[in-house]
Every structure is written in C-alpha cells, then in structure tokens.
C-alpha cells in the first residue's frame, strides 16, 4: 500500500495540515509542511502548474461536495467513506467536531477508515488538542505541525504502508528512550485505557521490534525513531503534559 498524501481540514474548511509522500524514501522526512509539499512534486493539471495550496482546496471541495451529496441521499446518519478512481483511492473520516481527515492512497489499499480514526484519536487528540501550547483553532495550521505529531504520523503510516523503510530501524538505543517516555506518560496519569495501551505496547516493543510492523501503534510508545533533536522536543512536550492545565482536562 502506498500513501500519497494526507490532509486535515478544520471546521472552518481550512486546511490545517497537509503532507505529501513520494513512493521513494527521499525527501519524505521533510519537516515543515510547506517544504515537504513544494519540494515533493509538481502538481499540475494539463498545461498549468497548480500551486499546492490549490490542491488542498480542490481536495476539500471534492470531499465537501461528496459528503453533502451522500448526506442528502443516504440521510443525515450516512457517512462518506471513500472513493476510487482508476488511479488512486481517497479515504475520508470526519469527526463529530467536523474536523476532516483525508488520505490519498493507491488502489490496493484496504479501507483506511480505522487508520484515520486512530490518527484522530491517538495522534491528533493526543498531540494537538491536548497540547497546551497549540491554540484551540489552527489558523494556517498553527499548532498541528508539531514534531511529535509529525513524527508519529510518519511512523504510523510507515507501519501501515511499509513503503518507506527507514534506515533508522536498526537503532537499538531507542528502547531506553521508550521507557523514559512511557514513564512520563505514566506519571501524568492520562487515562486507564491509555495506560493499559501503553503497557501493552511497551511490552511488545521490548519483546520484538518487528511487531511494530504489524499493528497500528499509538505513537509515543517506541522511541526508536527519535533523532537527538526530536528527543528534546518530545521531552519538552511530554514534560509540558505534566503541567496543571493539562491534567485538568483529563
């Protein structure tokens, strides 16, 4: 399965996050959104080269229209799940708060609905919504493109797509860091479910590092992929989680 791109739209129809991948491992580990996007591929229709910004607008227009059409025909409780063309497949997931998650994959991909939901629950809520440093709204994508979210997303999709095999897989020193982050989450006492989840994951990750390719993991469990710079960032945010306002919301 190949993932081509991923978009998040907020309830104001604004694209607050977008990411494009190429099927080759180069230039995919881009950091800022704009860099990744503009460097990725010339997006163009016919004779004109469209700016990538338009691209997200087109995607939004498409899913928005289709979603409305589906609701009109199938009733308010019907949900638009995906569509297929001869070249790609678009998956759609909408949260009750009208945040829309869109992913473009190749045709062989199975339904990504669960995966998108997992990204919402385990990544977006955890690292963006719960992040006290990110604003409640995300004008221009502020607060979404934090390192923790991006890295976890990257891993998540790697696990599910297995397309982009990174060399850093071989690193072993990560297990310590994993334990470290695990501990922090533990201390902050997020929720019973999360706790249990973390335990399981810590266990499997310690048992065999191969397991991570078969399950869709929640992100913070395994620090294998953190670079030095990232660790500091992750620590920073993890520590921020311990702060007072954060715990209140839990």
């Amino acid at each position, binding site marked *: 399965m190949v993932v081509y791109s991923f978009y998040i739209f907020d309830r104001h129809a604004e694209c607050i996050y977008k990411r494009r991948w190429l099927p080759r491992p180069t230039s995919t580990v881009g950091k800022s959104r704009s860099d990744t996007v503009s*460097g990725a591929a*010339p997006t163009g*229709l016919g004779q004109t080269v469209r700016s990538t910004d338009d691209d997200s607008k087109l995607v939004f227009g*498409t899913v928005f229209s289709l979603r409305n059409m589906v609701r009109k*025909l199938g009733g308010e409780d*019907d949900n638009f799940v995906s*569509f297929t*063309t001869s*070249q790609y497949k678009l998956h759609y997931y909408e949260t009750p708060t009208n945040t829309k998650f869109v992913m473009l994959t190749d045709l062989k991909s199975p339904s990504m609905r669960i995966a998108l939901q997992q990204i919402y629950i385990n990544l977006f809520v955890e690292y963006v919504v719960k992040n006290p440093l990110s604003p409640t709204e995300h004008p221009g994508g502020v607060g979404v493109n934090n390192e923790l979210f991006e890295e976890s997303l990257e891993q998540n999709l790697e696990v599910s797509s297995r397309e982009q095999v990174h060399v850093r897989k071989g690193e072993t020193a990560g297990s310590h860091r994993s334990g470290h982050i695990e501990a922090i989450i533990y201390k902050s006492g997020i929720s019973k479910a999360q706790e249990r989840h973390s335990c399981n994951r810590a266990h499997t990750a310690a048992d065999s590092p191969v397991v991570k390719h078969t399950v869709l993991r929640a992100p913070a469990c395994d620090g294998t992929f953190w670079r030095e710079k990232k660790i500091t960032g992750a620590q920073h945010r993890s520590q921020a989680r311990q702060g007072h306002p954060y715990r209140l919301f839990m």
Partner: protein
Amino acid sequence: MPDNTRGVFSLIIINKAGGLIYQREFQSGLRNLSTNDYLVLAGTFHGVHAITRSITPKIPISQPAPSPATSSTGITAPAASGYSYPNPGVPVSGLDYLETDKFRMTCFQTLTGTKFLLFTDPLTGSVDTIIQKIYELYADYVMKNPFYQIEMPVRCEAFDRHLGAWLRGRT
C-alpha cells in the same frame, strides 16, 4: 416474476454538459429528493468528477524538479515531463466508485462524456455488468429512437420498459 431488483436503488444519467437527463428509482433505500435537488446533484457531481480526476497524484520519474515550466501536453499519457501516474497504462479517470455506510455509487463515463450513476446496496455484486447492460439498453432504446433529442431529458417508454424488465429478471 421474481423480483431481483434488490440491491439496485436508483439510476441517474448525466449528459456531457452536467445536466440531469434521467433519474429513476428502482427500490427505496435512498431518500427521495425533489427534481430540483437531483438537478443540483447532477451538476455538482459533474464538477466533482472533473476535480477528482485533476487531483490524481503525480509521481516524479527522475528528479523532482518542480520547475514552473513543467507542463504536460497530454492529460492521460504518462507525461514525458518528469512525472507519471500511479497506474501508468490505465487512462486517468475521475471518480469510479464511491462508498458510504449505506450505499455504493458506481459512475460509468462513456467515451462521449455521458455519465451513468448507479446507486446500489454496498453488498450488491457485479455492478459493472449491470452498468454495461444499462449502457447497452441506452444505446439501443434511447440513441436509436428518432424522437430522442441528443443531450435532452430521456423520455423513452421502451427504455424504461426494458430497463425495468431486465433488472427484474436479472439473476
């Protein structure tokens, strides 16, 4: 006669300009819309279909050089100017299948630009066969009818009759 229309909700035909020219319900399962709503739906879908085609991901072939001069001459062919489509060899199409919780929509576009939208139960199989047969009936009983004006709403009693009979008799 056994009723085998189970699974086929309705059919919509959209002409090449995006106008609704045929709408028929075979089995309830979707909400009924007013004629005006169907017209809007047809027009909207026509546009969306074109967009879904244009947002096809492009994969750079050699080096990802996003030079502004990059412009492809052909839309369908894997362009020589630096990128290819995910499925080279298959013509780029717009939306073919749409899936929701309650129904599945299959869109078949003829080479002349007419679109057939078939709404079926998500579990209905051999949708492509159904739509091919509908196209055949359309070619026979609509296009060969001297009283049918091209691109205008389809009001052909023989088409209705054969369509209904075939869907009922389908096994």
